[in-house]
């Protein structure tokens, strides 16, 4: 029983990491209509930015901010100079997916000679160990959960209560109508890439902290987990992505406790397949903050 309680605690950390990544990914898709398969590589690039900052003797929490800033700027530039020109030319949806896949491969291969293929670790990211009712977490893991909760609340506040959030929702629902209503959709989209890019960068650093040791090859894994949580919750739905993250994060750890750990991801993704069969639109389709009316 102790092991299940401990696994639940670990699941809380896992779902926090996934939630940050998945919400950024799903917002990017929901508002800009872009399935950005380079998301995982931007995450790992940001993780390396934080690594070099941390290696220079700066605390990883400052490194996390550097990673978020890098993710924001990199994503913004990626859209401005790669994706947007293709979209303006009327490239099909599947064509844009292929473009993002190509970008992903280019980032990975450009990064490889710079950072090397070997794993690296942040310094002093463990923190003290805290035990409570069978749950064993480090102070830094608790901080990661806290960061995720704060970010989710901020996203909720942004989408529900700010003019920018309302403009984002309008752009997501019908960009042409939003433009005709006087919403500067291009600026909204720029803001979306900056915000989701920051989430992406932050998620990369948090995921790397969560892994203790990371390498360039982890980018693909980051993407798959974020994608799975986003799809599970309903593509384009931030609240759905949060729920998807909770399910995948908890199921992964609890199944490792209950069953053979080498199959823990099989179980999590098995649930994803099951949900897709029973409810192809995802758990929260047309209910989330970005859903079109009706």
């Amino acid at each position, binding site marked *: 029983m102790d092991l299940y309680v401990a696994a639940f605690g670990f699941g809380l*950390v*896992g779902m926090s990491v996934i939630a940050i990544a998945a919400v950024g990914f799903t917002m990017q898709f929901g508002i800009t209509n872009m399935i950005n398969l380079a998301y995982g590589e931007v995450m790992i690039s940001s993780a390396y930015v934080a690594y070099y900052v941390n290696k220079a003797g700066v605390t990883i929490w400052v490194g996390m901010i550097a990673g978020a800033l890098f993710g924001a700027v990199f994503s913004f530039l990626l859209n401005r100079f790669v994706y947007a020109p293709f979209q303006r030319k009327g490239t099909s949806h599947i064509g844009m997916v292929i473009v993002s896949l190509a970008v992903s491969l280019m980032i990975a291969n450009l990064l490889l000679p710079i950072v090397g293929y070997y*794993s690296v*670790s942040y310094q002093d990211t*463990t923190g003290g160990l805290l035990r409570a009712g069978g749950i064993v977490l480090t102070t830094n893991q608790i901080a990661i959960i806290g960061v995720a909760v704060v970010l989710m609340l901020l996203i909720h506040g942004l989408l529900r209560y700010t003019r920018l959030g309302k403009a984002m929702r309008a752009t997501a629902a019908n960009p042409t109508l939003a433009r005709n209503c006087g919403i500067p959709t291009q600026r909204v989209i720029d803001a979306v890439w900056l915000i989701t890019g920051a989430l992406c960068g932050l998620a990369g650093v948090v995921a790397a902290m969560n892994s203790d*040791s990371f390498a360039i090859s982890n980018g693909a894994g980051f993407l798959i987990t974020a994608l799975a949580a986003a799809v599970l919750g309903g593509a384009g739905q931030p609240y759905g992505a949060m729920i998807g993250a909770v399910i995948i994060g908890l199921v992964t*750890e609890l199944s490792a406790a209950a069953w053979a750990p*080498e199959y823990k991801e099989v179980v999590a993704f098995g649930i994803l397949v099951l949900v897709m069969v029973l409810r192809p639109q995802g758990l929260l389709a047309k209910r989330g903050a970005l859903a079109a009316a009706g």
Partner: protein
Amino acid sequence: MFKPSPLVSAVGAILVLAACGGSTPTGGGLGTGDLLVGVIAPFTGADAGLGPAYYAACLAAAPSINSNGGVGGRNVKCEQFDTRGEPADAVPAANKMVASNSNLMAVVGCTSDEAATVAPIIDRAHIPMFCMTGQSEFNKTTLKYFHRLVPADVYDAFAMVGSALFGPGHDPYKKAALVFGDDIGSQAFVAPATNAFTHLGGTIAINQPIHLGASSYRTEVAAMLKTKPDVILTEALGSAGTYLKEVKTQNGGKMIPFIGSSATIDPTWFQQVRDAIGIDDLLKYYAGVDLGYTFSGPAYSEFLTNLNAAASTFKDAPKYKQRGSTLHLYDGIIMTALAMVATNSADPKVYNSKIIDIANGTSSATVVNTYKDGVAALKAGKSIRFVGAGGENNFDQYNNSQSGYILVGYDKDGNEVTVGHLTPDQTSKLIAAGG
């Protein structure tokens, strides 16, 4: 617009094909044009640390040959073929390698991740290969072009158990956790290690295959620690840092002794684990096993010089100065080149069998340690035995070469340090117990 006729196109295609991949000899002789050594291994993915070690071997071997006249004047070059450590990616990589390079003289690499799928392809193409796999299915292989310069994984597993039971500086460990990656290569250790350890009085606290590349191993580590093992036997390349740091964290900042396979004698593994758990704990709690290298002598000296020089092409090359597989593959390439010179043939069907003659030698053979000395001896009409940077080779009828193990650790700079040996009696006990 000019549109070529089908005939012109066909002639053009033939000319293009003829121009590709250098030339091949007709009716004996060593031919002309560059020769290629294909390095087929994971360069990306969870086992991405393996490929560079093998590529470094080729980069060191090529100048040994090229600066001494080449193979009948032909220079040797190296090319990477990435398998990503996945059989599904390895097959097209192997097919591409053999189909597009008619000047392949040898292939090195083929780890346990992909050997089962690529070795038959390379064998069908009649290219000598030196594979870094310990899988038991190759213990009695019928593939004529397959060569293995390292013992099967079962012996590596026995040596790890030997370290646990007979290693210096500790009482015999009685309760072991087996933490091996879920890849084919790592899982090959589990059965022989379990047999040897339990038959010699030990208990397996937990056998925990772990999914390589997972983002965390918290629950796995919690489950493992619950069984209270004395020692962890492990090979989980790529994920060792993540797993071991979690062990230290959940165990209140204290490591558990851990014994690694010979694949953990690797600069990337050292760096990863050092960064994760700290150098002090790595030096104190880690023990490894390796083949008994001397890291000295004329062959090793030339290897080391070339490896350091290879840094201009591949900056990490010098890191592999004590990597067993790098030494062995270096030797394999030199032996292949010598076999070509000895048979005066660039036809693998002719020179393949000569590789083993040169490795094993005969009682009257002249022992040579470098390509230069080997060519000179062959030109003088002598029979040779090549003893290279990795030491002597003794191939059996299945093209497997065997040698003994030593117990090792690291120093603070990542150099291998010998800490003990297994006696013949201990080795016999381990093999008998392991079955």
